[in-house]
């Protein structure tokens, strides 16, 4: 089964917000980025990547002054298969990542009612990988 492994928040001040969640819950900063899409920090609770980002484009169509929960990310075994499945269900492809390598989204898609989510087959930084298949675990 695919796994929810990423939650992203749109923040005006990602430094202060990241500091709050580190102090409140003991989450750890595992990566800080300043890329073409956003600047901010990735926190981890050991399972989920919580990204606190100041976005540079209006991905949601809610305006550049939208602050709050922004998107989530699903870790899958095969991105191409997942993308096809989502598209067959009416989901719309938005963009692919511009950065090679693990640690971020690979494909961004819109689901019903314009909800934005990422799919990736390489775990986000600080996120737990997919569980081993049962047949592998039994070996």
């Amino acid at each position: 089964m695919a796994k929810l492994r990423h939650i992203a928040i749109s923040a005006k001040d990602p430094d202060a917000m990241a500091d709050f969640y580190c102090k409140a819950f003991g989450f750890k900063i595992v990566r800080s980025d300043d890329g073409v899409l956003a600047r901010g920090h990735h926190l981890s609770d050991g399972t989920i990547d919580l990204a606190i980002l100041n976005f540079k484009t209006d991905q949601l169509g809610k305006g550049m002054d939208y602050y709050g929960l922004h998107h989530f990310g699903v870790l899958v075994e095969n991105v191409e298969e997942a993308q096809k499945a989502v598209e067959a269900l009416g989901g719309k492809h938005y963009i692919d990542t511009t950065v090679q390598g693990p640690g971020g989204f690979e494909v961004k898609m819109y689901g019903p009612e314009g909800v934005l989510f990422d799919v990736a087959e390489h775990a986000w930084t600080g996120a737990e990988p997919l569980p081993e298949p049962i047949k592998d675990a039994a070996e």
Partner: protein
Amino acid sequence: MPKLRHIAIAAEDPEAMAEFYKKAFDFKEVGRPNGHLADGVFLSDGTLNMAILKFKTDQLGKGMDFRGIHHFGVLVEDVEEFTAKLDSLGAKHYIDQGQDGHQAGYFEKKFFGPEGVLFDIAEHGWAGAEPLPAPLKDAAE
């Protein structure tokens, strides 16, 4: 360490949206909440509870027509301890759940963090969410 165990989406049609995520990612339906704050569908990936809800009040102050990711939830060992901690960090307490809330797999306390981001804390897990890992000393026994 506390764990992110809940994500809630504000939907106009929770039924259709839940069907989409069930079919797309094989998430399983684990509940049908119907309360005074919202009704909808609880899904699970085996670790997190994903709540797809039609809200009945404007919790975020973004209007009743807000659609999108609404709040998240953190599973903690002790709600009272974390309430005091959050208060000291400047978070604003919003509401508590009813006494039988945890039995239904709901939140226990809602807070607004920086920039008005809404999150829940609970010490009883959301429906379909994985519990906190056992402390190391328990795991070694």
